[in-house]
């Protein structure tokens, strides 16, 4: 697999010069490992970022609009105003992520130059390229990408994504698609792990997945990068459900700041994610937190309104 990394400098240690390498696979994938078991929250300004940090979010996603508002607004959704991204970066010490349009090389480079900690090449925004994703291993900043199945997951890893998230259906507050996608990816990973090696090239063809990535999955017995769940988490029980199904953590988009009481929802979702098997605790933290965001039935969305179809 093609890999780029930057030899930044040498430092002298005794009589030996040691190299310092930035942007390597270990450093990029390692950053996502540090987020495991946590909740990453969408925020649109410094005030929301501080609420998220105080509630125990492991990172924030700086956006101009949360997905449900993007849906409502229609039109073309683009990278956030750099001013908002900088405002959020100044407000918190936890990592800050930001979204670039699929295939938009320059939005991604601009976000990298701002110093964001992770870029989400995201189907929530209107794609800039309907054929090609970013070649993510040419960047120093790590990327997270959406997936609905093993083929998408493995192609994004092949392009250099250091973290995945199952797509779900953003901005709906409906967990059904998130469940479908996580179950699909995990079932297909299990199939690869159980497969004989002489069957794997045909599997690569059938899944539309790079052969080398499938070999890595088989060797590790799991995806080689962290996989969070996204797209529809609206309650503490939703977050715990995704952990139960094997997610490494959760993204909550509209679910926090479109809830009646964002502070309470944020705290409750963080606790339910950590203690996802402690049902008495989930009951306790779910009490009197107000109403969640209003949801959308997936059947009411026209195919053209489904963000999950974006990405190739």
């Amino acid at each position: 697999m093609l890999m780029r990394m930057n030899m930044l400098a040498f430092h002298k240690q005794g009589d030996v010069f040691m190299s310092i390498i930035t942007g390597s696979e270990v450093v990029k994938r390692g950053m996502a490992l540090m987020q495991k078991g946590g909740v990453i929250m969408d925020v649109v300004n410094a005030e929301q970022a501080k609420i998220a940090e105080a509630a125990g979010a492991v990172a924030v996603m700086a956006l101009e609009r949360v997905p449900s508002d993007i849906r409502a607004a229609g039109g073309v959704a683009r990278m956030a105003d750099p001013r908002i991204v900088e405002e959020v970066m100044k407000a918190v010490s936890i990592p800050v992520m930001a979204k670039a349009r699929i295939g938009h090389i320059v939005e991604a480079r601009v976000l990298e130059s701002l110093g964001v900690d992770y870029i989400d090449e995201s189907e929530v925004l209107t794609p800039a390229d309907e054929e090609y994703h970013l070649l993510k291993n040419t960047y120093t900043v790590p990327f997270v990408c959406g997936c609905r199945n093993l083929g998408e997951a493995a192609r994004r890893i092949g392009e250099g994504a250091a973290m995945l998230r199952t797509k779900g259906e953003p901005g709906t507050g409906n967990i059904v698609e998130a469940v479908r996608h996580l179950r699909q990816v995990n079932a297909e990973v299990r199939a690869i792990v159980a497969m004989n090696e002489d069957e794997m090239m045909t599997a690569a063809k059938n899944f539309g997945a790079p052969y080398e990535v499938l070999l890595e999955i088989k060797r590790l017995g799991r995806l080689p990068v962290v996989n969070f769940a996204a797209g529809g988490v609206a309650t503490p029980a939703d977050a715990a459900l995704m952990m139960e199904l094997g997610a490494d953590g959760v993204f909550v988009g509209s679910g926090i700041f479109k809830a009646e009481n964002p502070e309470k929802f944020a705290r409750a979702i963080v606790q339910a994610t950590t203690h996802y098997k402690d049902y008495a605790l989930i009951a306790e933290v779910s009490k009197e937190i107000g109403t969640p965001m209003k949801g959308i039935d997936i059947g009411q969305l026209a195919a053209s309104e489904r963000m999950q179809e974006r990405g190739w």
Partner: protein
Amino acid sequence: MKIGVLALQGAVAEHANAIEAVGARAVIVKNADDLAKLDALILPGGESTAMRRLIDYYELLEPLRTFASRKPVFGTCAGLILLAETIEGEAAHIGAMGITAHRNAFGRQVDSFETTLPIKEVSDAFPAVFIRAPKIVAVQDGVDVLATHNGEIVCARDRHLLACSFHPELTDDLALMRYFVEMVEAYQ
């Protein structure tokens, strides 16, 4: 030997694997009750701010302080921040180790790096992965500096407490984990 890994968030499985690889038993710690019967504890890498919130939600701070006053603890990255007696610009958390920590000392994620370091009594060339890492800006008397990077302290030991800025759990090198296990054995 039973070594716990504080499992509120972060690189828990990676530490648990390293513990098992050196022949000790790894125990996942989510509640104060889980601390009983442990010989030692690891505070893993992750987001220290998020971990602290979860520590507070379940009133884990006092049990962790009591544990660190009596038994060996090893903190990596975020764990170093949790252990430090002083943190620049914020209040201490467990505060058991005689070091002053500086958060995100090497820059943001694009500045995260890997290199090789000699660690005193541990390794001549240890693979060190720094991810939005903290550094130790000062140590109290009696604290042993085990490793530096460009003159900055990145690994230290204070009696039964060990901390490093980098992530040994992200590499296959078990030398630092073996060193910690020897610390625990000597302590018993």
